C-alpha cells in the first residue's frame, strides 16, 4: 500500500535507488552474458575462478560489466576534432540522467519515493524515450559516417518498436479502470496512469484462473499486450534480432563508434540502467510488481517481495538470453516490417481485449478468469 514518506527519507531513497538500480542492473547484465555464453557452449564470465588463477585474474567475475565500466572511467577520453562538442559530450549524460530520474518513478517491490505519483507511467515512458533520442543525437554529432548510419537505424527502429510499446502499455493501464466494476472487487481509480496504482491493484486483487486462486497478474488478464511489450523491449534493449543500430559487423559500433573512455562509460551506465528499468517496468506492469503484502511464515513481506522479484527477473532474463542466443540479426527493413506485423497486431488485440472480456462477462460467458 502506498505510503507517504518524510522528506529526508525521500532524499535518501532518491540517492540510494539509482545506486541499487545500477548494482542490480550490473548483475542482470552479467547474468545475460553468462546465460548467452552457456547457450553458445561457452563458460561466460567466471563466477568462481579456479584457485590457481586467482592471483592473476581475481576471485570472481560476477561484476564483469562493472569492471568494464570502471576500466573505461580510467581511460583517456578522445573527442574527434570534427565532432559537435556540446552535443557529443552532453548526450551520454542526458541519457544517464533521464534514466536515473526514471528510477524514482518506478516502484521497485512497491517502493517508490514519490508514492502514488499520479502520472508516473507517462513520465517513465517519456524519460525512457530520451535514450534513443540522445543516441541519435550523438551519432549525428560524432561526424562519423558509421555514427550517421547508426543514428538513421536507431530512428527507424525506435519508430518501429515504440508504437506497439505505447499501445500495449496503455491497453494494460486501462485494465485497472475497466475490469473492476464488471468483475466486482473494490473499484479503484478508473484507468489509472500511476504505476503505484497498477502495482497495488495487482497486489490487492486475486483471480481465480480455472479454479486456481492466484494474484491478479495483468499478464494473465491481457497476455496479448504483455507479449507485444516483451517484443518491443527486445528492440529497446537491442537484443539479438534487433541489435541493428550497433551491429558490430555492419556499422562497427553505430552511434558509439567515436565514443571513448569516460563518455563511453557513461553510455554503458545508461545501458545498464535501461536494462534495469525495462525489466522492472515489465514486472510492475504485468507480474504484480513482485509485491507481497503478507508476512508468510513469519518472514517480513519485503523479503518475500525480494525473492519474488528475483525469480521473476531470472525468468525474464532467461527468455531474453534464449532470444539473444538463438537468433541472427534482422535487416532494418525486415525489423520494421516485423514490428508492424506481429507486435503491432498483438498490441491492437490487447487494446480491444479488455472490452471483449467485459462484454463476454456482461453476456455471462465464462472464459475461466474471475477477479476475486
Amino acid at each position, binding site marked *: 500500500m502506498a505510503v507517504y514518506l518524510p522528506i529526508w527519507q525521500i532524499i535518501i531513497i532518491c540517492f540510494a535507488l539509482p545506486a541499487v538500480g545500477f548494482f542490480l542492473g550490473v548483475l542482470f547484465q552479467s547474468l545475460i552474458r553468462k546465460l548467452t555464453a552457456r*547457450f*553458445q*557452449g*561457452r563458460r561466460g564470465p567466471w563466477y568462481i575462478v579456479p584457485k590457481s588463477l586467482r592471483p592473476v585474474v581475481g576471485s570472481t567475475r560476477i561484476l564483469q560489466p562493472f569492471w568494464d565500466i570502471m576500466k573505461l572511467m580510467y581511460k583517456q577520453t578522445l573527442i574527434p576534432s*570534427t565532432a559537435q562538442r556540446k552535443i557529443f559530450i552532453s548526450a551520454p549524460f542526458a541519457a544517464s540522467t533521464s534514466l536515473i530520474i526514471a528510477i524514482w518513478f518506478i516502484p521497485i517491490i512497491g517502493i517508490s519515493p514519490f508514492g502514488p505519483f499520479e502520472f508516473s507511467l507517462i513520465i517513465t515512458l517519456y524519460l525512457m524515450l530520451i535514450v534513443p533520442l540522445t543516441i541519435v543525437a550523438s551519432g549525428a554529432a560524432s*561526424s*562519423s*559516417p*558509421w555514427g*550517421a*548510419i547508426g543514428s*538513421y537505424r536507431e530512428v527507424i527502429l525506435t519508430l518501429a518498436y515504440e508504437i506497439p510499446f505505447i499501445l500495449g502499455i496503455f491497453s494494460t493501464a486501462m485494465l485497472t479502470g475497466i475490469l473492476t466494476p464488471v468483475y466486482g472487487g473494490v473499484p479503484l481509480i478508473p484507468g489509472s496512469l500511476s504505476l503505484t496504482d497498477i502495482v497495488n491493484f495487482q497486489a490487492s486483487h486475486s483471480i481465480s484462473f480455472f479454479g486456481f486462486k492466484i494474484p491478479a497478474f495483468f499478464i494473465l488478464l491481457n497476455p496479448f499486450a504483455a507479449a507485444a511489450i516483451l517484443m518491443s523491449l527486445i528492440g529497446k534493449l537491442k537484443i*539479438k*534480432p534487433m*541489435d*541493428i543500430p550497433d*551491429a*558490430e*559487423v*555492419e556499422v*562497427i559500433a553505430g552511434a558509439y563508434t567515436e565514443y571513448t573512455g569516460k563518455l563511453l562509460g557513461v553510455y554503458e551506465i545508461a545501458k545498464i540502467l535501461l536494462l534495469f528499468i525495462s525489466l522492472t517496468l515489465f514486472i510492475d506492469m504485468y507480474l504484480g510488481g513482485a509485491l507481497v503484502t503478507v508476512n508468510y511464515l513469519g518472514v517480513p513481506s519485503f523479503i518475500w517481495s525480494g525473492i519474488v522479484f528475483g525469480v521473476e527477473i531470472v525468468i525474464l532474463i532467461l527468455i531474453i538470453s534464449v532470444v539473444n*542466443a*538463438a*537468433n*541472427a*540479426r*534482422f*535487416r*532494418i*527493413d*525486415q525489423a520494421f516490417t516485423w514490428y508492424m506485423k506481429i507486435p503491432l497486431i498483438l498490441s491492437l488485440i490487447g487494446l480491444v481485449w479488455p472490452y471483449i472480456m467485459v462484454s463476454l462477462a456482461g453476456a455471462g460467458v465464462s472464459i475461466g478468469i474471475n477477479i476475486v
Partner: protein
Amino acid sequence: MTDSEAATSKVEKFSIVDEIKLFLKEMLKDNYIEEKEIQDKKYVIRTTPEYVKPIADYMIRRDGRLVHLTVSDEGVHGFEVQYHYGFDHLETNTHFIIKVRLPRENPEVPSIAPITWQASWAEREMMDLLGVTFTDHPDPRHLFLPYEWPEEAESEKIDGFSLYTKRDKSAYYIRKDLGKWVPLALSPADAKLTLLPIGPYHPMFIESEYFRVRVEGDEIVDVDMKTGFNHRGVMRLAEQRHYARIPFLVERVCGICSTTHATAYCNTVEAMLDIEIPDRAKYIRTIILELERLHSHLIWLGVAGDLIGFKTLFMWALRDREHVLDLFEKLTGNRVHHDIVYLGGVRKDISEAHIPEIIRRLDFIEDSVKKYIDIAFDHPVVKARTMDIGKLTLSTAKDAGAVGPTARASDWKIDVRSSNPYAAYSPEYTTWDVITDSGCDVWSRVVVRLKEALVSCDIIRQSVERMKSTSAEIRVKPHLPEEGAEAANKTEAPRGELYYYIKSNGTNIPHTVRIRTPSYRNDAVLPFMLRGQTLSDAPIIIGSIDPCFSCTDRMIRIEDVKTNQVRLERIGDLARKYRRA
C-alpha cells in the same frame, strides 16, 4: 547411353583439342611457330603478339576459360606473355598455353581485357610487376602496388601527370580524404550520397582490405576496393628459393588453405619431373586436403554466421572445427600450417592407430554439419538474411570467371577435383559427386558449402578405408628438373580453382613461379553481386564468396552507376557486343 550418342560424344571428345589446333593453324599459318605437349593434354603454342586478340576471341567463344594470364621474364630473350586457356570443364585436363615473345625494350602487347573480364586483373598485375604494357586496356591502373611506389615520379615525367592522378584518381582521392570526412560539409548534390570507408580494419573481414562504399540511403551505389595490403611478394620470394624449401613458403600464402597450396606446387613440380607418387601418399594427401576443406568450410560458416549477427552459429562452428584441428595436430603435428605435403609424396605416414579416431571425429562433424544444414533450411531469420541476396546468374558467373563454390552455387558444374584429377580424386581411387545448387544467391552458397563438407567426410572415409591396402611407401625421391622444363597444374582449394605454373632453368631454383588463387577470381565477381543491395547485406555478400584477401592482393573498382561513368562493370556486355560484331 546408346551407341550413336557414345559415338557422337567420342567425336566431340576427339574434336575439342583437334578443332582448336586446326583452327589456330589455319588462322596463324606461318606464325604457328612451335607446338609441344608439356603434360597430358596441356599444349604450348607459340605465336606472335598481333594474334593474341583473335585467339582470345576465338577461345572465349569456344567456351574456354582464361585461367590465367602471366608474363615470364626471359632475360636477354625479352618477356614471354602466356595466356593459359582452360577447357577442362569440357574435357578432362585440356589446357592451351599460348605464348608470345616481346622485346626487352618497350614491351607492348594488345590487351585482351575488352574481350574477357577475366584478363583485366591479370594484365594490370603484370603491368605492375614486370612493366609490360598492355595497350588499349580499359582500366590501366595500378593493381596492388602501394601508393608510395617510387614509379610515381617517373611516370610523372613521362605523362606530365602523376601516375595516380592520371591513372587512378580515386586511389589518390582515397588517400587525401582519408582523414577528414565531414558529412555536413558535403555539397548539396552529394548530400544524398554517403561515402563510407570500410577497412583496412573492419569487423567485416578477418583480413585487412580497403573498400570505399558509396551509399544512397541504405543502398549501395558504388564500390571501390583497394587491395594489396597483404602483398608479401610470395612469387618473387619463390624465385629465390630452392625447390625443396618452396612448399613451406607457399603454404604461408594462406593460413586457411595451406595444404592445397603445397599440393598444387608439389603436383606441378612432380608433373615437370614426370614422377608418379606412391598410392599411399596420394591417399594421405587427399585426407589432409579434405580435412582442410572441412575446417575451411566450418570456419566460413562461423564467419558467415557472425556476418549476419548469428554469434551462436559462429561459436558452434568454431567449436566443431576444433575437432578437425585436433585431427590435424595428431596427424601432422601442426594445427594450422601442416607442412605434410612434400615433393614426391608426403613427409609423414598416417598410422593404423589414428584411423579409429579419424572415423570417430568425422562422425561427430558429420552430425553437426547436418544440424547446420537444418538451421540453414529452417531458421526464419537466417533465411530472411540470405535468400535472394547477392544474386550471381550463371551467365555472369561464366563471363566474369567465378570459380569454386561461388560458381557451383550458380549452377555451374566446375570442380577441379573431377575435371583435372589429382591426388586420390580420380574415379579409380574414390567416388563422389560435384555439388551444385541453382539458387544463385547467398543461401545457395551456404548450402553448397555445407553439402560439400558432407562429401568431404565421405571422401575421407573412402580414402582411409582404401589406404589400408596400399604399400608402406610414402615418398619417392625427386631430382632436379631439366632446363626449360615447364608445368602447369591446379587443385581445388576450399574457395575454388588454384592454378600453379612453374618453369625451370636447370638450376635448383625455379625460373618462374606463378600462382593464381581462387579469391583472385571471385573478388572480381563481387561488384556484380554488390550493386543495388543494401549496406546491411554487404558483409554477408562479401563474405559469401569466402574471400581470402591474403590470397588475392589485388584491386578492383566499379564506377558510379548513376552518373553514366560505368566502365568496368559492363566488360561482360562489351565482350558480348564484341563477339556479336
